[in-house]
């Protein structure tokens, strides 16, 4: 059976989660590989969550927040915008390709964009293949 | 029927060690192996780290002599970043290093290697530890040992943040200058150190040299290997721990090589055996001839005796007197007597203490400027010091940002690992006859490698307890024929 990546998506309540809802109400289809988790603000997304997702078997992590300037909490998305680049750099050192983590801005009106984004990410992660988990003792 | 004796652990080198002794049918030693079942891979995981972190990472190779690694690494960074530290910084580093050498050597003599002599090579295990030593030297001296160790280590803590894994080394200097108050303390402790070193030598005289049995032991062929010697010397070919050129003398004591450490790859190589995780160093041009001594074998030795063998003098007066006296007593230079390492160590401790006093009294030591910010682009650097256990070399290659791409570490004990192996073979062959093994014999074997004070000697003599030795004599079938343990 072909590789079906698991992608954990952290969506901010006010923009991106609403955007994903809009994709639904507009019946815009995308593959079910993406598994959303709602947070109030993308600024709530701890790097720990991303590591946890990979440790638990995710092959990719998508973080969506309001567009710069539109944050419901004014600057939460900027905080994430500062953390993710450093996190990616660190993940790379741990053998997790940067492409497996994406930070995107999705507004409440961008249902279609959310769907496209998800499709695109699934495709890219499929190319990368599964993110291998480190084994236990080697005997 | 081959029998097999296992001594495990003898003591720890890089990690701990294990001796396998094979007996032939007559019960005489066929062969003996010193195995080091320990590997952590520092040379690999240094890669990708920022170079300036190396002094604080590589020192985790050894918590007994972290200062040696810290300093070799820091000097390597000076070279890597092409920066010459301010005089004050250099002097503070050397001062710090002298304190360390004094402390480490003293610790070894009284706590670790010493007990073999102090309480006697054949003494029972219960005595062969610091408490046994205390018994011999009296509690008051014992307190003194503990006391001076504490004082020196407190000073080092104040100078470098920590004494177990100091943090102050940086390319181009150190992280902070000295304070008047501290220098005052250092002067006092230095004076005390000199006194104490002289006392130790006197004590060694009375206890060992005046005791024919010991002296014979030292001079006996069992503990003799004719090898090359390597160590750092200054421009006057005098003993130096912190800086200088590497000098190698042949078994006759003639200068065989003298080179700046940057060229070490031209002259020394590491040999790999499938049965040990430790690598064996040898002189490239002489070549690896197996575990044999003599002029045609590339095996060389480092550490106290080696250092004295390669140097023409010691710059500090008292230490130099002792230096002369030692060679007179042992019948000339170079000395190949493994057990003479103990004596040499005490002389070095005296030198370290005297040097400590000299530097502490240098006014420049208080200069506030102890850093020079590097500006050049890093590429490659090599740094060396004489660790208590011998020559220690750090060698890094980095990218333009100073991220390590390749690291090569020549760790003190490795230099001696071939010699130690050889010594054990020799001792075992000489001491175990017709399968007869007793605790005394085991101690006598143990003495060989403890003379080299291989890293991690620590634990073994520290507390009531012992080096747990066990000898199992097996039939070829592997069934246990006879078992002996010393605990």
């Amino acid at each position: 059976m072909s590789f079906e990546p698991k992608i954990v998506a952290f969506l901010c309540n006010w923009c991106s989660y609403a955007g994903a809802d809009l994709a639904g109400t507009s019946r815009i289809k995308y593959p079910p590989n993406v598994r959303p988790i709602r947070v109030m603000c993308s600024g709530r997304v701890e790097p720990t969550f991303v590591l946890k997702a990979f440790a638990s078997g995710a092959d990719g992590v998508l973080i969506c927040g309001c567009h710069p300037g539109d944050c419901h909490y004014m600057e939460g998305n900027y905080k994430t915008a500062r953390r993710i680049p450093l996190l990616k750099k660190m993940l790379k050192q741990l053998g997790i390709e940067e492409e497996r983590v994406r930070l995107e801005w999705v507004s409440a009106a961008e249902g279609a964009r959310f769907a496209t984004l998800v499709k695109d990410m699934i495709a890219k992660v499929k190319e990368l293949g599964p993110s291998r988990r480190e084994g236990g003792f080697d005997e | 029927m081959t029998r097999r004796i296992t001594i495990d652990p003898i003591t720890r080198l890089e990690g701990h060690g294990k001796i396998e002794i094979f007996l032939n049918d007559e019960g005489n030693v066929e062969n003996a192996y010193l195995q080091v079942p320990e590997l952590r891979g520092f040379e690999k995981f240094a890669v990708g780290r920022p170079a300036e972190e190396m002094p604080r990472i590589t020192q985790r190779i050894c918590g007994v002599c972290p200062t040696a690694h810290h300093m070799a690494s820091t000097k390597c960074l000076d070279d890597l970043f092409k920066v010459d530290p301010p005089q004050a910084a250099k002097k503070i580093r050397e001062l710090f290093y002298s304190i360390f050498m004094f402390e480490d050597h003293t610790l070894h003599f009284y706590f670790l290697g010493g007990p073999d002599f102090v309480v006697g090579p054949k003494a029972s295990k219960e005595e062969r530890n610091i408490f046994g030593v205390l018994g011999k030297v009296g509690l008051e001296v014992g307190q003194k040992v503990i006391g001076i160790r504490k004082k020196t280590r407190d000073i080092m803590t104040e100078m470098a943040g920590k004494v177990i894994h100091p943090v102050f080394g940086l390319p181009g200097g150190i992280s902070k200058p000295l304070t008047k108050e501290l220098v005052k303390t250092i002067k006092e402790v230095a004076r005390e150190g000199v006194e104490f070193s002289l006392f130790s030598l006197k004590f060694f005289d009375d206890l060992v040299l005046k005791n024919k049995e010991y002296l014979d032991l030292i001079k006996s062929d069992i503990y003799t290997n004719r090898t090359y010697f390597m160590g750092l010397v200054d421009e006057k070919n005098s003993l130096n721990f912190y800086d200088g050129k590497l000098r190698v003398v042949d078994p006759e004591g003639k200068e065989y090589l003298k080179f700046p450490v940057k060229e070490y790859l031209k002259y020394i190589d590491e040999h790999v055996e499938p049965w040990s995780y430790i690598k064996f160093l040898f002189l490239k041009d002489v070549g690896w001839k197996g575990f044999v001594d003599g002029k045609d074998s590339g095996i060389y030795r480092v550490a106290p005796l080696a250092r004295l063998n390669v140097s023409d003098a010691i710059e500090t007066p008292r230490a130099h007197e002792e230096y002369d006296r030692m060679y007179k007593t042992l019948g000339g230079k170079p000395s190949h007597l493994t057990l003479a390492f103990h004596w040499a160590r005490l002389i070095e401790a005296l030198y370290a203490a005297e040097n400590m006093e000299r530097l502490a009294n240098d006014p420049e030591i208080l200069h506030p400027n102890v850093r020079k910010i590097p500006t050049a682009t890093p590429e490659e650097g090599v740094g060396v010091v004489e660790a208590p256990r011998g020559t220690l070399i750090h060698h890094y290659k980095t990218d333009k940002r100073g991220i390590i791409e390749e690291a090569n570490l020549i760790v003190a004990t490795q230099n001696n690992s071939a010699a130690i192996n050889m010594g054990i073979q020799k001792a075992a062959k000489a001491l175990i006859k017709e399968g007869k093994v007793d605790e005394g014999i085991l101690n006598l074997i143990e003495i060989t490698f403890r003379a080299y004070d291989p890293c991690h000697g620590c634990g073994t003599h520290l507390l009531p307890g012992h080096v747990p030795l066990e000898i199992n004599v097996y039939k070829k079938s592997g069934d246990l024929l006879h078992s002996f343990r010393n605990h």
Partner: protein
Amino acid sequence: METIKVGVYICHCGVNIKATVDVDKLTQFSSDLPPVSVAKSYIYLCSDPGQELIKKDIEEFGLNRIVVASCSPRMHEPTFRKVLRSAGINPYCLEMANIREQCSWVHDDPVTATQKAEALVSAAVAKARLLEPLEEKEIDVIPAALVIGGGIAGIQTSLDIADTGFKVYLVEKQPSIGGHMMQLDKTFPTLDCSACILTPKMSDVGNHPNIELHTYSEVVDVKGYVGNFQVTIKKKPRYIIEEKCNACGLCVPYCPVEMPDPFNMNFSKIKCLYIPFPQAVPSKYVIDPTHCRYTLKRECKQCELVCKDLKAINLKQKEQLIQVEVGTIIVATGFDTFDPILKPELGYGLYPNVITGLEFERLSSASGPNLGDLLIHGKKPKEVVFIQCVGSRDKSLGNEYCSRVCCMYTAKQAHLVREKIPDATITIFYMDVRAFGKGFEEFYDRVKQEGVIYRRGNVAEVFKRKNRLIVRAEDTLLGQPIELEADLVVLAVGMVPSKDSPGVAQLLKLSQSADKFFLEAHPKLRPVDTASDGIFLAGCCQGPKDIPDTVAQASAAAARALTLIAKGKVAIEAAISVIDEEFCSGCKTCISLCPYDAISFNAEKGISFINEALCKGCGTCAASCPSSVIVARHFTTEEIMAQIEGVVL
């Protein structure tokens, strides 16, 4: 330690979910999850019987955590929280799994969609079992409101609140209230005189016992939180002592300085000691310090000397700061008209007879420069061209929105031209005519009846040929280029956010939408609320509106504000962040990150501290706490970690 009993309820949502997700399989799956005591599915959980089902189970099985797998929590979380509350368990013990918007509606394959639904439910259950009951705290509300902006929106809001008997502080940056509406001539589609309908409301404001009016003033600082704001108002010096000035006007003739009259869009001149317009409220003079000789170079004190009896003039007046405390704030800072200089091809600023719609209003107004006669260089224009959508629906300018009033005011202005110059040729270039409001379409018809020519087309440029204005355009219906001569070109400029709005956003921590108008809390369900509790929006600061919509929204904002004030208490967000004092080392990392300045350093305890009333629960601080000792309630690290494990199932 209570034992966690989770109930899972799966909604079919008719066929919306059931058609794609195998609800029976999902129910079975859910009931097999460890902490789940009961799992059921129902056709419409949000219906009364659906809610009853949950309530009954809560009592029967003693459930204390509820998972509802249905539509988006953004849809029905409030509904089901009420269910929990009414069943006597804490509403925050609810977790929803969105298996409609983010599952059944976006996936086709029932098998994989059901698998995903299972993952979503297991995640919800994993979180639910960790959910903590949260207590909704209440704080007192200061029974007073601050209204920023004295246009029609601010006026209406103030009156509504004041009439209910509560204190209102109305702050207007101009010397008089009235705003843009005061400048308009007639209003569409009814053609009432704008001033005539506005001035009564203005004087009501002026005389209202509950309204404290601060004109020529600005809000410079706002501290505090819903129910409890401390506001600082800066009163600019008007060099007239308001209490004393009786608007006799004796001083005016003595003022030697003339300046363009801003109220008349600079078509006429006034003294720099002036009353903005006859019906100004307050009816007090003001001296323009940018023109007055005294304020500029300490020369001339004529006016002060003249007003010797009242001593109402004080040229040395300084600005003053006034502190007020209010429970709620209504933002009614209005709009600016688009500046057509940004579309040079239209020749505005280059040719005096290219004017904006607002300028037209003044020209045609009976109180305007020519007392109502529509004159350009003293002559009545014969060829009049209107151009619509100037600065609106224009991607090149980044103004994609429709300003909603231009179509109608253009129609009205065309009508006024027809009225004043019966033989004029009137052409209107338009993209589409949007006549959506009450009586709009009828009015539009009427104007067409009056012989106004509507040409669908984009104007390429306006230029001069032999002293005549030429309007070159493409008639998109005929699909051919045309050129028209014109004596007067009126640009139907749209609305843009007031240039003060960034400052206001900063001050009140308001979000702005892409068009830079203030962002409402929810486009449909909370159109006058903002993300900042206790702060509401009225009028065009939220987006272009005509007068009736503005007034309606103003009253709505007043009503929202009044619900706060009238109740006297307000529940503050329960799902906020708190710092665990036992483990906080006071590293201060969080302090600089809080957008609401809700975190402060307690020096004597050596720890950081979150003001619960200021915290909005975004959780940014929790995400950055190096010791993980900030608990983002309802979205705790443990809860989300559990969710992650569940969701990758």
